């Protein structure tokens, strides 16, 4: 059986995103992302595979807040991939994902330097979970050791589980079986996930229907991200 190739894609509707940060916590829980203590956060070593960036836009005497959820953009031509000397980060052709192989990583941190979105997080210290917090760790996801790079994987472990189930039943994976933790929990459904190779998937129709609001982060760099953003709209009533 020739296995399907996928083009996993995420759509982030900034008009819907409320910045509630449910995705952030969901990601921590799903992917065993360690929590960084206060001093290290100050040093700029905080770790959140998905983060909500807040930019101010001047608006009269005050400002408008612009919320921008940023996670690994899973670029089709990712700048972080070619610079890794050991293939610890590489492009999975069949899943069309930008993969990080923790046990191959030697920690040159070159990928992070060359990553325009700064979504790669480095384990500066051995991750710690006070007993019994470690009992919550997700067994499907490797716990990273000190000195390796990590980043959003589009919850590849969920893709793997679904695909294994499909294989065990000897059928193709149905893309709608897979949904990352952040997308699953997002209350306003600002995050959508799907397989663009599947023409009648939800995101395919959403993308088709929102041409005017679409953009991709730092698209001018030619990284061809797999994450599409839908600009926040404006409603001007009366005023």
């Amino acid at each position, binding site marked *: 059986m020739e296995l399907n190739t996928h083009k996993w894609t995420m759509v982030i509707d900034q008009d819907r995103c409320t910045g509630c940060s449910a995705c952030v916590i969901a990601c921590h829980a799903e992917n065993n992302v360690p929590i960084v203590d206060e001093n290290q956060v100050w040093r700029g070593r905080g770790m959140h595979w998905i983060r909500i960036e807040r930019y101010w836009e001047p608006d009269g005497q005050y400002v408008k807040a612009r919320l921008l959820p940023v996670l690994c953009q899973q670029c089709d031509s990712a700048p972080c991939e070619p610079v890794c000397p050991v*293939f610890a980060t590489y492009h999975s052709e069949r899943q069309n*994902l930008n993969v990080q192989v*923790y046990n191959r990583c030697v920690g040159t941190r070159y990928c992070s330097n060359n990553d325009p979105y700064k979504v790669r997080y480095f384990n500066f210290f051995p991750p710690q979970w006070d007993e019994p917090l470690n009992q919550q760790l997700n067994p499907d996801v490797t716990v990273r050791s000190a000195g390796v790079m990590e980043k959003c*994987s589009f919850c*590849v472990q969920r893709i793997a589980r679904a695909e294994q189930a499909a294989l065990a039943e000897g059928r193709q994976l149905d893309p709608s079986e897979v949904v990352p933790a952040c997308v699953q929990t997002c209350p306003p459904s600002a995050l959508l996930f799907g397989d663009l190779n599947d023409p009648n998937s939800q995101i395919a129709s959403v993308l088709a229907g929102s041409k005017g609001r679409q953009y991709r982060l730092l698209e001018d760099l030619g990284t061809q991200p797999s994450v599409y953003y839908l600009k926040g709209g404006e409603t001007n009533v009366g005023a």
Partner: protein
Amino acid sequence: MRSVIRSPFFRRVFIAVVVTVLVLAAAAASYISRTQAAPQQPIPFPHALMVQAGVQCTFCHTTATESPSPGMPSVEKCMGCHKMIATTQPAIIQLAAYWQNKQPIQWARIYQLPRFVQFPHDVHVNAGLNCERCHGDVGHMTVTHQVNNMNMGWCLACHEQQPNAKQLMDCVICHH
């Protein structure tokens, strides 16, 4: 040049080097050979007997076909049969003791993959591989021992053979 090689100093150095190399090699060899010895289990468990008695692998390793992990039989499961069977055997008496004190048996594990490898048994079993393919002829082992050192090369060597498995040689398949 020749004079140098002939010099007693040089010869002494040469001999010293050779000797140390030999000693180290011997030490390494003996170490490796000793690590290959099968472990001593808390209860001697002859797989051979079970299999000859007609017990299927999946009778004890129940989840092998449906779960990533094959599962180890609980003490209760062992007792399920051994309440009746071979109750006088010393091993079974040991087992009964565990059951009495509701103690788990601490088996020494034969096969252990690193923590950063995600290996699904179900997919492999359902793909038609029988247990012996990887675990060796357990059916004839009285003391279970490791047959294949399951390193990445070994996995890939096999995956390259089958057309289906060949599609599953991406790093992320096992490392995530």
